[in-house]
């Protein structure tokens, strides 16, 4: 309970001035015994245990992806026995005339183009909500916030029925268009816009004679750029990981994103075990871009999750 005051107070931003004279008063024996549970070793060991839990399946994925079907089904997944990563990769490239890498390309298209457009749309709306005053603004923003609460999978079936009515079902558009809407992105963009774009900068540009849209395009967008990366990153992840919508919309294998393709292969694997290494290796490749993005863009996803405290 009663830590030595230095350890108790010092967060990263905490001032280091703590009065040690206070300590003796609070050190009763009972407290000291609980103290042991809050020692640096115990705290860091608990955190390390949690990390073991989160990283273990990923480590397993890496070692399992290097195995042939026999090695994979023989258990002992953490060894490198039956090492055949090259074989797995070449089978991945040739199975079904290289359909896997077509799925990969589709995922890049859905997630890349979808997230880029979605980010632009969200930032335009968020900027308008932040920088302009117009009647009904807060009611409209309330509608956006309500949209955040709508369970997206409950929308997928009606969307499918609408799409089949209009003939869009089983096309690229059927997956791409719903991915362009992200009410939460508008909320984030409004927060970022007010944090990153000072009104004075816009005023200065207006005095120089720039039109409103021009001000948005060349001043606003540039200043809010770090926020753009954040919105893009989260939307890219959401689309890349989306499964329900493509499952409902697509029946043509050549339009599948990776997630849906792996699901189909996993269904085959129960009858034909040679698909297991393909599913596992394919999963590893499908996870890599996002892992790399999250490792290199740490500042940006943290900013997204901290959005409320930016202001």
């Amino acid at each position, binding site marked *: 309970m009663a830590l030595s005051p230095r350890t108790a107070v010092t967060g990263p931003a905490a001032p280091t001035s703590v009065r040690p004279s206070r300590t003796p008063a609070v050190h009763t024996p009972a407290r000291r015994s609980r103290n042991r549970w809050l020692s640096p070793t115990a705290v860091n060991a608990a955190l390390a245990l949690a990390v073991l839990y989160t990283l273990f399946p990923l480590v397993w994925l890496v070692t399992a992806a290097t195995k042939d079907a026999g090695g994979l089904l023989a258990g002992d997944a953490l060894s490198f026995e039956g090492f055949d990563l090259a074989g797995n990769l070449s089978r991945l490239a040739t199975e079904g005339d290289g359909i896997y890498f077509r799925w990969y390309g589709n995922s890049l298209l859905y997630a890349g183009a979808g997230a880029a457009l979605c980010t632009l749309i969200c930032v335009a709306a968020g900027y308008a909500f932040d920088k302009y005053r117009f009647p009904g603004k807060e009611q409209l923003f309330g509608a956006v916030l309500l949209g955040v609460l709508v*369970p997206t999978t409950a929308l997928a079936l009606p969307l499918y029925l609408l799409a089949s009515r209009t003939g869009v079902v089983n096309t690229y558009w059927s997956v791409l*268009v719903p991915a362009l809407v992200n009410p939460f992105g508008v909320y984030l963009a409004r927060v970022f816009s007010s944090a990153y774009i000072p009104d004075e900068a816009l005023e200065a540009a207006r005095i120089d004679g720039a039109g409103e849209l021009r001000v948005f395009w060349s001043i606003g967008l540039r200043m809010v750029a770090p926020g753009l990366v954040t919105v893009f990153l989260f939307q890219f992840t959401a689309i890349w990981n989306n499964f329900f919508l493509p499952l409902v919309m697509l029946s043509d294998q050549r339009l599948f994103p990776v997630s849906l393709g792996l699901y189909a292969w996993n269904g085959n694997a129960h009858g034909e075990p040679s698909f297991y290494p393909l599913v596992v290796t394919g999963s590893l490749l499908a996870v890599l871009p996002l892992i790399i993005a999250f490792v290199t863009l740490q500042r940006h996803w943290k900013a997204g999750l901290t959005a409320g*405290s930016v202001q």
Partner: protein
Amino acid sequence: MNAKARAAVVLLVPFFALFVVVMVVPIGYAVWLSLFTEQQSGLGFGGTHTVFSGLGNYTAALGDHAFRDGFLVLLGYCALYIPLLLAGALTLALLLDSALARARRFFQLALFLPHAVPGIIAALIWVYLYTPRLSPVVAAMESGGLGFDFLSPSGALPSVVNIALWEWLGYNMVIFYAALQAVDRSVIEAATVDGAGAWRVATAVKLPLIRSSLAMVALFTVIGSLQLFTEPLILNQGSGSAVTSSWTPNMYAYTAAFGRNDYGLAAASSVLLALAAALLSFFVTRLSGRSARSGRSGRSGRHPSRASGPPAAGRPVRGPRPPLAHPEGRP
């Protein structure tokens, strides 16, 4: 002034046009569809035609024990998953925020990484790790005397909860940690100077100050939980698990639409699910709002005035709303 109004419209139209097409219209269409049913005409020669059935699809869905069982499964899932998730994420965030933690950046990243894994791949990995003979985890648990059959009927719920926990623990931990980092350090210092230990600082000072993010995470977790689909679908996909094709309401709606081509029933069950989500979000918001209010008035008595005084009153929440989870994250 006029130019500004025009610019605002131009910037807002793309979003709201798509918003209407992708969110508002489908909701209306689902409600509309749920009022009709397909009927065999005459001797079955004329194919089917659509007839108005009022609330018939709703009574059919609610009268189907498979649909009701789905809600029972969800109830059990929420009862197990939400407390574990909130307590786990909060504990980790408090540990990381305590001055004792080392390598904070590493811990944050390593705990967050499962969020980069698509739900379907997370489920695939864990199904392997659940399968006896394949799994080092099951083998280790058995040798430790903790044998557990994840794929048995009674193991289905814990298996799904574990997958969801793995996916969302670190994500929500980062949200809580970010909120903790924003807590005014002088408040904590004041409490410590007044003799509060680390435990008391955590529970009586830090926790009340981040309750708005706690409420938000609870809200989005509830909404996400109601949509449970991908993880049980993979468990259902021939792994020998006890998960059925209508295990959750969402799976029920999917099976109704694509297994039985009963769009009216599928639409009605989607609408019922969305209604449940709306009711629950209202409930959670009210509940957290009330606890926040009573928490504020109740605390001032037994607390060092410095800890709950000016910062809590002058800066009740940070920003327009607390740090939010990304709700689209659940596929």
